């Protein structure tokens, strides 16, 4: 793996004594989209804030492009763009001025062509002379994204990017994320909307109560943990699974349907259907259900809580 960002043993205990993050190790590959998934208060924002230099870690080191994020903060930070969760913007500035400000703040010489491109990509160009306080919440979110992209970062952090965002912006944002990724930008997003991770991410990390429980390729995760079910609506409801079918992991649901749980590699469905036929059990409808990342996530968090 061509590692662009490495987190080693990073933990955080706030002055209040609140333990927000247990020691975390995490490597991010160049060019990937990584989704950090977890319930509210799991430590997602704390981890991102540490990587970006807003929060000082209690232990551990962050390395960005080979630079220690504390000792060589200049080289590390200028490679990073951060879109925070809160809509924190300068109310009295114009859109264009605030985006230009961000670029210079991050040490880059002015580049009007790049700023124009970023604003156009985010449908902000027509609003460039508007004062930020006149903009809607969704537009302010776009401004924050434009600010984060103003200095052409190699790594972009999106902290809960679609929280409270309308459909148009969500669609624009995903289009932009795809475009950025195609251009080689590494993207790390946090979310508690599972669909978001499912749709976008190459890899998923699950964080809960300050611990990273799991990091996995999304596809592998879905394959490994994704349970599937065949739901069979019978012609005549059964009261119990016939003894001849005892070898099969079958259940009868409350609505009378016969449920067959299997994993993604299972190839025995035709055999099961043949066995049903041999027993003279007729069926009207078949339906398969694939568990979503959300089901997997809930399972994971529950398992951990039970342990």
């Amino acid at each position: 793996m061509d590692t662009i960002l490495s987190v080693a043993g990073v933990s955080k205990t706030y002055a209040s004594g609140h333990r927000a993050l247990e020691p975390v190790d995490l490597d991010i590959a160049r060019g990937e989209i990584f989704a950090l998934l977890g319930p509210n208060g799991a430590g997602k924002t704390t981890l991102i804030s540490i990587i970006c230099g807003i929060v000082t870690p209690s232990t551990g080191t962050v390395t960005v492009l080979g630079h220690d994020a504390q000792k060589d903060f200049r080289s590390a930070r200028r490679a990073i763009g951060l879109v925070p969760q809160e809509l924190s913007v300068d109310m009295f500035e114009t859109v264009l001025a605030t985006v230009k400000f961000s670029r210079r703040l991050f040490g880059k010489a002015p580049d009007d062509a790049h700023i124009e491109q970023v604003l156009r990509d985010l449908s902000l160009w027509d609003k460039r002379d508007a004062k930020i306080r006149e903009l809607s919440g969704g537009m302010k979110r776009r401004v924050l994204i434009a600010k984060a992209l103003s200095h052409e970062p190699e790594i972009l952090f999106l902290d809960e990017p679609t929280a409270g965002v309308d459909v148009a912006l969500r669609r624009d944002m995903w289009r932009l994320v795809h475009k950025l990724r195609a251009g080689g930008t590494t993207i790390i997003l946090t979310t508690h909307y599972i669909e978001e991770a499912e749709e976008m991410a190459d890899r998923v990390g699950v964080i809960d109560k300050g611990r990273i429980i799991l990091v996995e390729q999304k596809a592998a995760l879905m394959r490994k943990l994704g349970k599937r079910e065949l739901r069979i609506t019978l012609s005549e409801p059964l009261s119990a699974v016939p003894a001849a079918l005892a070898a099969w992991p079958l259940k009868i649901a409350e609505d009378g349907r016969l449920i067959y749980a299997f994993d993604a590699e299972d190839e025995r469905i035709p055999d099961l259907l043949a066995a049903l036929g041999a027993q003279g059990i007729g069926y009207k409808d078949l339906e398969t259900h694939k568990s979503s990342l959300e089901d997997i996530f809930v399972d994971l968090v529950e398992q951990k809580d039970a342990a």
Partner: protein
Amino acid sequence: MSSATKAPAVNYHGIWAIYRFEMARALRTLWQSLVTPVITTSLYFVVFGGAIGSKISTVGGVGYGSFIVPGLIMLSLLTQSISNASIGIYFPKFTGTVFELLSAPVSAMEMVVGYVGAAATKSIVLGLIILATASLFVPLSIVHPFAMLAFLVLTSVAFSLFGFIIGVWAKGFEQLNFIPALLITPLTFLGGAFYSIDMLPQPWRTVSLFNPVVYLVSGFRWAFFDKGDVSVGLSLGVTALFLVACLGVISWIFKTGWRMKN
């Protein structure tokens, strides 16, 4: 791991961005920034110069109207430096935009140069505007113009640093006004802005010597009229000491992240 080129040792673009941002904030309210000091200064001249000055005539051979000019400039310089610099850094903390400053490749000192540089620039311009306004009311000749400018710059920078500290310390808007109103204004009024401390009876003359503003006003007045309440070297020393003390506190703030970072 992939490597990348190292960043330059100083982020000049970053300093310039902060400086420009802060200056733009003042330019948006240019009218207020210019008109307020002109009106206030005129009022002081009407009250002190016209009404009271007619009774006092001269202090140490200088006409009373001219005598109060350095103190008047100092008064505005101290309060405006503190208020400009404190709001400059407090406001991003209040609105949350400070996240961007903290995540930017800008060192603590670069941040200070940007914010304090802008606040001090505004104070210096303000001082010159008051000086120009004053010259419309009273005859003014400046004996040591370079020393005058040096005190103007030094005081503006020192109190902008002090204001920066207050801005970092403040947890609410009331606290921003607390120190200027409760400490700086009284110290300035009692610091010989409108009188020479020689005019005070003992023990107040000695007590006044513990007021640091006495040294600022005295040094500044020396630059105008070649005479002050204390020696110019002592004035310069106290001003420089205050500046160094503020720099010390600021480096501690950034080292510990006090009230800036979690």
